[in-house]
């Protein structure tokens, strides 16, 4: 069910999951995304918080620690599977693009 729901991830979803391949807290996730995308993808704290709750509910991420102020999370095996599937899908998109656009530029 969860995998079906997250078949096509949005950019913020993809980068949040990518950031959580390591244990991280909310603000760290925001910083990593900013760093990865050089400011192209922006995730506000409210949006991040809602997505983290949703991922946790669907068992894509797990709460690792909570000191009352900060919570840290990490990907679960299910989450990793969803992320890898999305990676393959994106890779396929790029390959298809390359095949067509590459051929065009050859001509």
């Amino acid at each position: 069910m969860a995998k079906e729901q997250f078949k096509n991830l949005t950019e913020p979803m993809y980068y949040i999951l990518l950031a959580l391949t390591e244990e991280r807290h909310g603000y760290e996730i925001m910083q990593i995304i900013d760093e990865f995308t050089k400011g192209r993808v922006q995730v506000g704290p409210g949006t991040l918080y809602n997505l983290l709750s949703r991922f946790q509910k669907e068992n894509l991420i797990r709460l690792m620690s909570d000191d009352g102020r900060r919570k840290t999370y990490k990907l679960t095996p299910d989450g990793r599977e969803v992320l890898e599937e999305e990676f393959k899908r994106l890779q396929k998109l790029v390959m298809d693009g390359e095949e067509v656009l590459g051929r065009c530029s050859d001509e």
Partner: protein
Amino acid sequence: MNKDIKKELFLFTATDYFSLKDHFEEMAREGWMLKNIKFLTAQYRKIEPKELVFSVELYPRTAEEDDKNSFINLCEESGWKYIASSKNMLVFYSNKEDNLIPIHTDEKLHEKVLSKAIFMDILNRIIWPLLAVRWSRILPISYVNLSTNTGIMMPIFLILLLTITLSYIFGCLIWIIKAKLSVKKNKKIPKTSYALARLRAISAFILLVTATLTIIADLIGLKILSLIILSSILLLIIFHKVDIRFKKETLDLIKKTALFSIAALVIIYMMLETGSIQRNDKIKAGYIGFTCRDFNITEPQIGKFDRKGSLLVPKVSIYSEINQNIPKEFMKLYIEYGVGYTIETTYSKSMSNKIAKYIFDGMVKDDLIHEKEIISIKDKLDDIDEGYFISYSNEVDGRKSIIILRGKEVIYLKGSIDFSDIRNLEIINNKLNDY
């Protein structure tokens, strides 16, 4: 009055999300910075006019404190300053030049969260008016309800409460549909009107204050109009002029004293009601009540006199006499069923003859359910408009009653005395003529 502090009535709900954000920004531009949100009021402090960006966040009421704190912490780490909260609403702000990432960057997700919060708010708000309507009859008003201000006001309160709630729910549903359509078309989530939200808040506040005052007026037996004026002045002083600050110890002492007083009052009331404390009340001047002595019954009697009143029926009293030899544990039963030499007079004096007639008809209609025999006694008593003697089909307690309408007055007598007996009717007639 502190000129550096400004207070506003605050009774806003989930859909007011955007209108509040704009309002706080406008206040900051005018030199008023939100300080805190307390029960029913938002407080502002005077500042140099500033361009600030506010963000009002909805948070589930059921969320644990830790979750809330970690959300506030995340927003603060992102540069937003947490300023105040009210129920499920959290308010953040930042300087405009900081140009921070907005708290919500995904309109679709934001719309879903808002719609869910608003929907939960609708469920939370609809249940009480529905239960109130289920439990109370709005119209026609029962004659019994006319004797208290709460009883009279209840249908008006229910109609107003339903109107406010239904218009709010309708507004919410329209907003949810509009928001979904906007997000679908990649447009911004629609805003709501602050003026409308404020109007709704003020209406709900007036309703709340009037309902409270009506209940207080009934409890302490004061006239509602004078109480409304006095309490309104007091409320104005409390909300706008005086900053009442108690020390924690003083506040604790006030709370404890109030709790003990309420508990003591409840215990005394229950003891009086169950007969554990025997009452020997007398009929107050200006009210009508018949005694066993009037009917030449000389056994020792215990008298119980209660009175109430409302704007429409200023005088209502119930006087009952019970034989003192009756065991305490059966006293309540004796009062209710009128067994033995018990007599009870319910007296009411209304503002007009029409209201008195309404009460009289209601009483007759109620008694006709048990009726065995009903006889008009209009010709047997002097100067009355209408009157009936009723004996009941339940012969076990031999209960009988007499209901009289005389101008603005209604006198209802019940007990084991045979009111159809011409000698007893004469006693009633003589006593009524004396009043």
